[in-house]
């Protein structure tokens, strides 16, 4: 576990991306941003992250493809929190099978989102 609490936010919607980043920064988290799955993989190559917040619907490489690619990558991998606008159970189940640690359905409540992120970033605190 790294000492930095770095979050990789993978979201193609600029508006939502900026707002989510502001949310996370307000909690003292360090946020890096990627606009699609391919960019996110490059970011992972460049540095370490404590959590990946991933949108499923993205151009070039969608969330599922990113999760599969991530699973195929050797070494320790950060947990992934999936944000999905799809409400069907199959999408959430599929994301979990692809390796997502948690799935949140949009629109998420701000407090719940922050609590979920923090629980994934600092699991020890939750257990404590």
């Amino acid at each position: 576990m790294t000492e930095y609490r770095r979050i990789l936010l993978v979201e193609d919607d600029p508006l939502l991306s900026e707002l989510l980043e502001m949310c996370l920064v307000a909690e003292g988290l360090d946020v890096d941003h990627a606009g699609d799955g391919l960019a996110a993989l490059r970011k992972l190559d460049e540095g370490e992250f404590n959590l990946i917040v991933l949108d499923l619907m993205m151009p070039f490489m969608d969330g599922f493809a990113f999760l599969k690619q991530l699973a195929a990558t050797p070494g320790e991998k950060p947990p992934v929190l999936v944000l999905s606008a799809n409400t069907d159970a199959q999408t959430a189940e599929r994301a979990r099978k692809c390796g997502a640690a948690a799935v949140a359905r949009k629109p998420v409540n701000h407090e719940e989102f922050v609590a979920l992120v923090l629980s994934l970033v600092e699991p020890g605190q939750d257990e404590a």
Partner: protein
Amino acid sequence: MGGFPVLFVILPLLLGFLVAGLSQLGFFRVPNALVFDLAVAQARSTEPRVVVVRADPENLSRLTTRLRELGAELILVTADLAEKSVPPPGALIGLAPARVPGTETWVLPPLPRATADIVPYNQRQVGRRFLFSIPGESGSITTLEGAVAGREHESSDGFIGLAAAAIMPVLEARQILEGAFRPNTLDGKYIVIGPPASEDPPSILTSEIPGSPAVGNAGFHARAIQAILSDQVVFQLEGALRSLILIAAAGLIALLLFYISPQQRIAVAFLAAVLSISVGLALVSVADILLPVAELILLALGLGLAAAAFAARERRQRSDQLREQIASRLRRDQDVQDPSRRAEFFSTAAKLTGVQRSLLLRERRDGTFVPLAAFGLTESENSMSLARSPDFTRADETRPEPADVMGLVGWHDAQISRVDGTEGEGVYWLYVVPSSSRDYHAIAAAAARLARSRARQSDGLEEPQFGPRRREKAEVRLGRAVAALLTRDEELRRYLASLHTASILFDAAGMPVIMNANMRSLMTRCGLQPSRTTPVDLAVAITGTETDRVRTAIGKLVRYGGHLRLPSEAEIDGRSYLVRAAEIAGDLLVEIIDTTEQERLSRIQTELASGIDAQLRNDLEAIGLAANLAGNEKLAPEKRRRAFGLISQAVERTRETLDALARLVDPSALNAKGEPFPVNPRSTLEQELMKIAPLTERAGVTLDVRQPALTSLVMADPRLLEELIAAMLQVVISDSGRGSRIAVSLTEAAQETRLEIAGGFGLPARRLADSLASNAVDVAFPLRVIRSILPHVSHWGGAFQAESETGEGYKFNLQLRRA
């Protein structure tokens, strides 16, 4: 009993016996050489008893002496020869031959009978010559001439035949005098000395039977003589065997005539006539068939016909009882008010009456008759049914061409009943009872006669065959019965008229019975004639499905009942239809449902679920987060102000999404072709890939499809987008060889979604560009589709590029703006 082998093998054989017997009696003159040939063969003389010698008068005395030396028992000199010379001692003087034109009859003194051989009647009184062979000093003398001469001869057993002395070798006096025969060669022979052959009348020198060989035909004489000398009997029935066969034949004929149906009798009689003549000719030639054969067979025929007539009368009585039963049942059924039971009612009525075929006719005031419904026709009969005859018009056609008018009651097996109506106008039911129905033409014939009858009435003439009492009785009995049908007919018409779907009712034979205005309008648009459209025609025209598939499906529906749904595979005027059919008590109710709006609504639902719903959730998420951040004390003031500003952006974007949704569900835009709506490109592509799978399989190509699991909505007309994708796939697939691969790729960029299709052999770039740019009509259909849709693509805010080079394949690139 009525099976094929019995009808077509045994019966002709038996009738052949009949013909043979009749020919023995002389009813048929059979001009056939074979008959004469074999008739001679039946003359079972072990050896000739009479020898004819032709001699000149000056040789008569010497000849008589020599004949005595050779063993002749009796010597007779013909009268005409005796007149020219002094008769030799020991010779008798005969009578002059009868001078019958075409024949030569030798009149001999009474001689003992050698045999009682039978020669067919038509062979009597006919003379023939043939070569004869008699053993001579140095072998057989085969150049001699013989003759068969016959006359009517009543034998002791009552048979008519040829006298024993009729088989006569004819020798020349020269052969006798020159010592060609050994002594005793003519032992016991009766010798007739006649004038030289040069004095024979011309009639015996050549054949008199057409087709038979002339006198000089060696083959003909050789067969005949061989049969005579070897005493061969070609065929003969004897004693008990003959009796058994004749009794069995008579019984079989009687049974056949009893069991075969009237329809079979016509066909069997025709075939039997043809075959029996052939069989009869053969039998008369080889068999010793006598008068009792004909007598017994005629007796059997009489018995069989009597039995058949008796059975037919019984069946007629039964059908009369059935008609009475249905009349009472139909009267009770008048209370049935449910229109949907009309078809069931007709079916029940048909079953109760045993009606196989019937026709409901409406008479108009102007004397025109229009068929309203035809029941009970088979599929093959449907094509030639009366309702389709140009002599009749249908109620749903506009051409009220006046037909003849009609009277009442029945002719033969067709019954006509006036159902209801006022004077000069009414409805008539024509039907055929099964026990004696010939076919549907009986109805047509009856209708025509009825029409003529009424026409005569209208001219002030009375129909002579039917009195007013019988007519009135028929009217009352059957008129009440069918009155109930009309009530339901009107109810059904009202019911169909109330339906929004285009609906039509066919009878079991596929004849249109009734339809509503929507169906009539739809048929007109499809180019179908209402009166000439079968359920299969209709379903094929509406759905574009293959005829065989539709025929099979409807056939199963008719046989097993239930429901059938056939979605359209092609559009009519840009609209989609669903054909729904249900079997109702033997009839077929077909409904055509316009599914265009249903499909659009289904698409809206899909898009809402997959696209707009997700977009709205993003928007709401943004608004919620922005609002929360704007009031978050943890953030710096400038960040909070920024968050506040983002609320406006999120709200604006939400408004755009809602606008897209409004356009999607706008009813006025349902028929607006070409207008862009938010569309899920992935689901559209998958749908088209599924549709084109059969073509792909036939072409033996493989599609390499790459697409994201989720895609954003794009702006396009869904229907045109489907057509465009299908056309691109068709172009490439049809240009690809077996085993080749086609790349289909759906990718998303920041503001657009891109669909690329690449593969095939390709065209020269210039030619493809010309095909898509010009209005040429000799362009392949899929390329024409692409060409027609291209203007819409730019209207949607998208773009389209097509590239091709010979050998390098096609590459289509469609870019669509994200919604």
